[in-house]
């Protein structure tokens, strides 16, 4: 569903964000901190994230358990730290795969043209017609629930957002005089592509994938939340929100709120960082 908004963001007027210098700096700090916490989870987590303790079920936050425990007695803070790993790695995999495959498709389509270009364009249009989450649900129905399937289907869903933009840019680039000049020098198509076209497209690919990352994070979390992504007992943020939801009614909202808060905080920070990055790469055109 968030893929839609990404599409709309490409179409519609851009949203205005804060432009001051401290904001990207703070956002960068948040992102770095979360990534560091994920990497060092085994060192800093106070407990084993999967250790059930029947004697310490649904405890409120306290000295032993900073955020309390869930309904099987697992330490929420530790699960939050460990949960950062799949929560960040899965969308990272989606973004990297969609970025790489999308760029390869786009550049080859723009470079070769003809039936290959038409086929790629038609296929991308078809994928564009599916809401990303629905595509992932169908994938789960066919291949079974789990993070690997979620990553694969979301990668397909995000292909058009990278490929469409890159193809347009590659087409423009391909018709610039320098490409013709390179060919006259006897440079082969593949080498001209790799050595000259790709480096010129790199900033665009970077911006597209960086922007998509936040959205893929929300989509994978949503997918785990509805039970089709990460499977228990894995600690993952979307799944933690779902597992914490019953606690809301029982007066133990810590798990749902902490995991939800982590998702929002990290996405906002990523979004701000992405905006700052794209502004820098685009140069100050204003």
């Amino acid at each position, binding site marked *: 569903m968030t893929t839609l908004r990404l599409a709309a963001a490409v179409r519609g007027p851009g949203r205005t964000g804060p432009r001051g210098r401290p904001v990207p700096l703070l956002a960068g700090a948040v992102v770095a901190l979360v990534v560091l916490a994920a990497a060092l989870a085994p060192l800093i987590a106070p407990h084993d994230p999967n250790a059930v303790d029947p004697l310490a079920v649904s405890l409120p936050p306290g000295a032993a358990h900073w955020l309390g425990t869930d309904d099987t007695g697992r330490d929420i803070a530790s699960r939050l730290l460990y949960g950062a790993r799949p929560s960040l790695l899965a969308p990272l995999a989606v973004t990297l795969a969609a970025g790489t495959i999308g760029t390869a498709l786009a550049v080859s389509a723009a470079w070769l043209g003809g039936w290959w270009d038409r086929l790629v364009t038609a296929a991308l249009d078809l994928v564009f017609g599916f809401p990303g989450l629905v595509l992932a649900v169908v994938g789960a129905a066919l291949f079974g629930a789990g993070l690997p399937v979620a990553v694969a289907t979301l990668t397909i869903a995000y292909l058009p957002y990278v490929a469409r933009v890159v193809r347009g840019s590659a087409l423009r680039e391909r018709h610039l005089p320098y490409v013709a000049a390179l060919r006259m020098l006897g440079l082969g198509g593949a080498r001209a592509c790799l050595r000259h076209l790709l480096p010129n497209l790199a900033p665009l690919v970077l911006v597209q994938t960086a922007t998509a990352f936040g959205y893929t994070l929300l989509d994978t*979390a*949503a997918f785990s939340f509805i039970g089709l992504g990460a499977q228990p007992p894995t600690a993952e943020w979307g799944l933690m929100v779902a597992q914490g939801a019953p606690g809301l009614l029982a007066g133990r909202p810590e798990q749902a709120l902490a995991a*939800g808060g982590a*998702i929002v905080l990290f996405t906002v920070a990523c979004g701000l960082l992405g905006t700052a990055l794209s502004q820098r790469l685009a140069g100050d055109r204003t």
Partner: protein
Amino acid sequence: MTAHYLLRRALGLLATLLAASLAIYGGLFLAPGDPATLLVGGGKPPNPALLAEIHRQYHLDDPFLTRYWHWLTGMLHGDAGTSLAHHDSVAHLIGSRIGTTALLIAYASTLILLVGTALGTLAGLRGGRTATAVTAATGTLMAVPTFVSAVLLIWLFAVRLGWLPAYGTGDGLADRLRHLTLPALALAASWLAYVAQVTRSAVHTEQGSEHVQTARGRGIPERLVIRRHVLRNASGPILSVAGVSVAGLIAGSSVIEQTFGLNGVGALLVQSAARQDLAVVQALALLTVTAFALVNTAVDVATAALDHRTPIGGARP
């Protein structure tokens, strides 16, 4: 707006739906193992007699295109097969649930269109502090994913304040709407924020545009300037994102129905996917993609009708 344009859009829509249905049906044969196993649902291999029956019923031994044609014509006649997991026809399963989903989406769409555009217009016209406040609030809302806003709304309004019910569907229209209020809010929140931001920006752009200045310079009363020039001209982009939002609600409703225990087709889709009940998933995926494509096409046509700046297929004088 010409007949030619409408025809072209209709044909494009048809082509998209055909390709999508082919993809949805073909997906069945991408999965490992016997597709009959998937159609039975449950992921376990059923007994050979049942498998043979499934093969016969779904024409699984025919050539692919014949099978596809059978399936597609069945869909068009309202025959979407049988869900063995539910021991019920797929058409009946969907029919009994689609009302809830339709009401939820209609409710959320209304919220988006009314509140989102009103907030955006207010911010765009007033500017200054109002605009800053609206931009900050909507910027925050946009970053909150649907399922997190659902959790927050349940916690705040159902648990802490006890104003609205958190689960269930309710009886009678008024009670159903009461039960749908939190789900609709959660579903609409981030889209509403998005529509508000685009509206603000569109209204703001028109406010500073030269033709609006001309209208002011001619002494046209301010309310007419706002209505006939600012809002009328901003309506194109607003309509366009509102349409994208409504299309987005269709996909987002699965998450919300699941969270709030609503018995709609979105929850059915998720549950069927978890059970690998393919007959239901295929039918619902096709339904969702159709609704999605219809809304997008309708919005494109409406936007073109609102904006005459680019004559569509018409001759220039």
